[in-house]
């Protein structure tokens, strides 16, 4: 076989490589050759250029809005500092229906409500930065987005336990994210409370003992997050989390009925 014939073989492999169609052994062979062959490197660049045209052959497909939302959420959850332009469009505040629509469309829903809510939280991370209507001022908006990013970061952590809390009608109104002794709540439908009351989340042991984990206010009908809560050392063996509404701004020794939302660990 001449040198020319030998190289034709690699040219064929270059076409297969560009098409991502080589068998593993051919791929290995070609990569070893490519390292020292400017001709094949150039051929690859040319093939890639031609294939980029081929990418336009299918009918254009409008990506669903959730794709961009997912990218935004991924950017914000990446842990890398990100800047975004000032939102200039007149967007509507995050509406629960929008979130539910998105959640319904998400494949995460297939895995159940848990991940659906997690996805909803991720969505809000993305929307938070863009959504001028959600917050009165930008500082609050940025702070909100950062908190959502933290919540999503928790959601992505395999060590985080995710417990949906359901209201009387069976609908999820909050999700507890528990990692070690830290808890965050993603709120998704609890009514706004007034200044004279507070919500309290309780941990219930297998024996039925209940200990307050944290108190929080609900200030918006939309999605929101409350973090920075810590389970007390005495709260062990939690089998269920409960949410009640209490008078004042702190938790009583025992919960006041009715239980507004509950979820089993």
């Amino acid at each position, binding site marked *: 076989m001449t040198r020319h014939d030998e190289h034709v073989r690699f040219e*064929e492999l*270059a*076409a*297969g490589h*560009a*098409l991502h*169609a080589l*068998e593993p052994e051919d791929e290995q062979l070609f990569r070893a050759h490519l390292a020292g062959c400017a001709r094949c490197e150039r051929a690859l*660049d040319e093939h*890639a*250029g*031609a*294939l*980029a*045209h*081929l*990418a*336009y*052959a*299918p*009918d*254009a*497909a*409008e*990506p669903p809005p959730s*794709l961009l939302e997912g*990218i*935004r959420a*991924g*950017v*914000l*959850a*990446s*842990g*890398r*500092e*990100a*800047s*975004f*332009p*000032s939102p200039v469009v007149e967007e509507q505040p995050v509406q629960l229906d929008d979130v539910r629509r998105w959640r319904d469309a998400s*494949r995460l829903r297939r895995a159940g409500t848990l991940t659906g809510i997690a996805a909803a939280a991720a969505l809000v991370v993305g929307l938070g*930065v863009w959504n001028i209507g959600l917050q009165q001022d930008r500082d609050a908006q940025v702070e909100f*987005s*950062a*908190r959502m990013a*933290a919540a999503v*970061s928790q959601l992505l952590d395999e060590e985080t336990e995710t417990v949906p809390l359901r209201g009387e009608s069976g609908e999820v109104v909050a999700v507890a994210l528990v990692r070690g002794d830290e808890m*965050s709540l993603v709120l998704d439908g609890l009514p706004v409370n007034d200044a004279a009351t507070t919500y309290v989340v309780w941990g219930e042991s297998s024996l039925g003992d209940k200990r*307050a*984990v*944290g108190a*929080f*206010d609900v200030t918006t009908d939309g999605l929101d997050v409350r*973090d*920075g*809560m*810590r389970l007390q050392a005495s709260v062990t063996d939690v089998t269920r989390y409960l949410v009640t509404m209490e008078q004042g*701004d702190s*938790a009583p020794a025992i919960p006041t009925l009715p239980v507004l939302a509950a979820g089993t660990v």
Partner: protein
Amino acid sequence: MTLPRPTGATAAAPVAVSRGADYEGQDDRALVARVTEGDGGALEALYARYGRACYGLARRILIDEQLAQDAVQEVFLTVWRDASRFDASRGAFSTWLLSMTHHKAVDSVRREENLRKRRTTDEALEVTESDAPRVDDAVWSLLRRERVREVLKTLPGPQREALTLAYFGGYTQREIAGLTSTPLGTVKTRMLAGMRRMKESLDGMSNAAGGQEPPDPRSAR
């Protein structure tokens, strides 16, 4: 009992808001440079230019919309994390992006064996069939699509078959040999010939969206 009220002070990803950013007049390379500096808006601008093409390609390969969405999301997050991998001296940004999209989609289709089994040879070849253009298609996109389809039609049937089965079907050369009852060596030869012919026919066509990118440096070689 008094409990500390949640403060919500923790943040996994610090978020700053830049003002007055203008991406429209910037070419792809400038946007990529901004992405490397952490400009999320620049990433979104790139998505606005190429997200549709990437999604269309991924959906064509994967059929399943959600899998296509996952693949494209992964591609753009790869750009976000590692835009510096883009080497402008080797080709247009869109070429790099679409190549990544193709690879991710093909990897995905190979993982989804059940999905692949549903696919037929005919499905992979359907791209040459022109549907009615969408009214909201950008003109350049529409023209490019028609031109590429025309070029595909001019390829000899066996070359077109080998290219489209590989590119849109995600089949390997050996699988194509089996599907078409053709010797593996012949499939390899057809692929190379088809690639060369396609390149010749498409030479001079810009790879960038709406003229946003300077000419491909390879055209000057």
